[in-house]
């Protein structure tokens, strides 16, 4: 009975503190406070807790929340053309709401970010944006357009009269080779000695891990994205350069939209260590546009873009957000939460004890994990992912991604009796554990698939040489039936190159940005892209310049 009274007194004291007692009970409590030291002490303690809670810093919603809400609402309602009446109304309201919310948000946050988010630039050219095409578009076709509020592609940007000359000059300043493959003969022979960097599109996430595999929250890891494009021919090389040029704003029509302060700053790096003809750039890109840039590069050079991400997630939820499927029934990212011990782990992921050097990137002493494209095709003999130590390009790969530790190599060697060699035998497969913990997509982070809009800058890819196109077709077929045979311990696979990829990447870089903010006192507004465009191999049979390829 006494305890009940004590509990009731405690509740009344708490309510008294909040001014929620009746006048009669308030008077009783005040009388008790005068009479009892214990009651006064209890009240003081309650007041202290209440005050301390009230002093906790208030968290503010992120800048992009209205936009995220709009996207989520879009996703819930579904594609516009199939929206029911009620859903359409919500969508219509939301389309408007965010436009209005943007105005409010602009007052608080950088206007350019929100502006770009609301009206992302859209590339509407039907052709690859060569200087020649730019010249033609100067008369008719427009290069860049911004999505209008009514949904139609506005053709408001007309190239300046001197657009061809400007474009050519700017592109050449970046290393543009030209469309005539015979020009390659003028390049230094050193290009021939540089093996084509045939690493397909992979994502390498460098996570700070403890010995037991748990993610270690650490400071000082600057988020960066290292991109290596290894074009197979001059078309891909030029197209990749055009993406960079677009970022720089040196293409007519793109100035002020994609380049400069509003989109990203670009600086060209010329290091003594770079191979002749190789171009390296540093691009500052808003985190919500990184995915577009990468996908654009990937579109121009399919399977020839390697992406290495470097960041320091300090919370497992950040990683989980990356793992969330971008669309119902599709999961392009896997993450092995079980984190098997190194001996169990896929040998493709070597723990780097020595500092990892990423080409053009930031030296890191974090563990590096290297994945390969799930298809792992090599010579059309199978789909088993290979070891990092491939012939010819092994050194380069080690240089670019990670240097396996001696322990890892020893452990790998000890298991090598059952592994495949280059004769095509199948390595012991490491089956990734099925991820049964995926949340429903609706419950996850904001991610939208903008099905109606092309990605930026959706330069229509010019057909490569027939051999390359055939190879790509083969790989696409193989990918349909592909399964992953190895799993990372703490790695991330990007398995698709479709538009979901952009959303995945966007989400990843948003998370990276969060990590950056975590480790920096300043608000970081951009992600650093280190873009390396390797020179294309010299073709043995240059295509005649007079036979342009049709898209």
């Amino acid at each position, binding site marked *: 009975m006494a305890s009940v009274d004590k*509990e009731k007194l*405690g*509740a009344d004291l*708490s*309510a008294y503190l*909040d001014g*929620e007692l009746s006048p009669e009970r308030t008077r009783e409590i005040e009388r008790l406070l005068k009479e009892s030291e214990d009651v006064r002490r209890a009240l003081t303690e*309650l007041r*202290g807790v*209440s005050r*301390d*809670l*009230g*002093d*906790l*810093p*208030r*968290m*503010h*919603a*992120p800048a992009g*929340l*209205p936009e*995220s*809400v709009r996207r*989520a*609402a879009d996703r*819930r309602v579904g594609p516009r053309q199939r929206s029911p009446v*009620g859903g359409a*109304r*919500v969508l219509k*309201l*939301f*389309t408007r*709401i965010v*436009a*209005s*919310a943007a*105005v*409010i948000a602009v007052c608080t946050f950088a206007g350019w970010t929100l502006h770009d988010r609301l009206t992302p630039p859209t590339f509407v050219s039907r052709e690859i944006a060569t200087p020649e095409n730019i010249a033609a578009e100067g008369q008719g076709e427009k290069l860049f357009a911004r999505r209008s509020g009514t949904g139609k592609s506005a053709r408001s940007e007309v190239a300046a009269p001197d657009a061809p000359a400007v474009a050519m000059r700017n592109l050449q300043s970046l290393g543009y080779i030209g469309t005539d493959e015979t020009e390659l003969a003028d390049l230094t022979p050193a290009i021939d000695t540089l093996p084509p960097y045939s690493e397909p599109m992979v994502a390498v996430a460098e996570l700070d891990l403890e010995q037991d595999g*748990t*993610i270690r*929250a650490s400071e000082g890891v600057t988020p960066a994205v290292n991109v290596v494009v290894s074009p197979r021919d001059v078309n891909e090389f030029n197209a990749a350069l055009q993406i960079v040029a677009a970022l720089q704003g040196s293409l007519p029509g793109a100035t002020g939209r994609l380049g400069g302060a509003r989109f990203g700053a670009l600086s060209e790096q010329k290091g003594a260590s770079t191979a002749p003809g190789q171009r390296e750039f540093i691009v500052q890109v808003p985190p919500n546009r990184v995915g577009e840039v990468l996908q654009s590069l990937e579109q121009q050079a399919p399977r020839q873009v390697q992406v290495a991400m470097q960041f320091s997630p*300090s*919370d*497992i*939820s*950040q990683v989980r957000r990356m793992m969330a499927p971008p669309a119902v029934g599709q999961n392009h990212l896997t993450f092995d939460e079980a984190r098997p011990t190194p001996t169990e782990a896929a040998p493709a992921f070597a723990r780097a004890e020595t500092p990892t050097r990423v080409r053009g990137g930031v030296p890191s002493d974090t563990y590096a994990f290297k994945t390969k494209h799930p298809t792992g095709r090599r010579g059309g003999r199978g789909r088993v992912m290979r070891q990092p130590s491939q012939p010819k390009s092994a050194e380069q790969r080690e240089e670019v991604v990670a240097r396996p530790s001696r322990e890892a190599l020893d452990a790998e060697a000890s298991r090598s009796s059952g592994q495949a060699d280059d004769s095509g035998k199948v390595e012991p497969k490491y089956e990734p554990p099925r991820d049964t*913990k995926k949340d429903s997509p*609706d*419950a*996850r*982070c*904001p991610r939208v698939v903008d099905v109606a809009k092309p990605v930026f800058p959706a330069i229509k890819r010019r057909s490569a040489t027939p051999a390359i196109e055939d190879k790509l077709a083969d790989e696409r077929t193989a990918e349909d039936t592909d399964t992953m045979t190895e799993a990372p311990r703490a790695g991330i696979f990007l398995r698709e190159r479709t538009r979901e990829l952009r959303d995945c990447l966007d989400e990843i870089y948003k*998370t990276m940005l*969060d990590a*950056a*903010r*975590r480790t920096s006192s300043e*608000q970081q507004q951009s992600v650093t892209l280190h873009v390396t465009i390797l020179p294309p191999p010299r073709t043995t049979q240059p295509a005649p310049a007079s036979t342009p390829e049709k898209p």
Partner: protein
Amino acid sequence: MKRTDEQTSPSDADLVLRAQRGDPSALAELVTRYQDRVYNTCYRMCHNHADALDLTQTTFVKALEALPRFEIRAKFFTWLFRIAVNLTLSHRRAQSRRPTLSLRNFDDDEGRPYDPPAANGADDPARRVEQAELHQRLEAALEKLDEEFRAAVVLRDIEGLDYAAIADILEVRIGTVKSRISRGRLMLRELLESEESQLGVG
């Protein structure tokens, strides 16, 4: 000045009415008006920025989907918070069924701006360190509370809602709110004292 603001800013009811009639600016104003409070509440209940962001977003999406059916005589604020709290509680329950690897949130403000501490001794580094430690311990203790107590305490002491509003949000009686707040505070006090004794903090 405050009086002027009150006169110029429309009430929630006005905004809801306009939003129901299709005024997008009213919708935008509602979102902007409450996004920080909802986010802060979700964060204090789940102690995770990523989850709080998801929950906040879902809250607004659900609210806006249901807005045409919202009765104007009800309080928009409590209705919105009811959605947020219910979502967060569901999320926490689901999470408890699927325990996840949690890492210490060593610096979990993610760079987001927050209101600086009060000016009383804020310039004193020692005081600031002390305050940061207190906040850290308080957040840890808050996380150990049962969901129902935490929700009540957060709504009262962090969001400053009165008992009637909390009862409306949690859909319980006022007496229950009173009990939960009281017990939540006591538990917090005990948790803090226990930790202080372990650390030897005076």
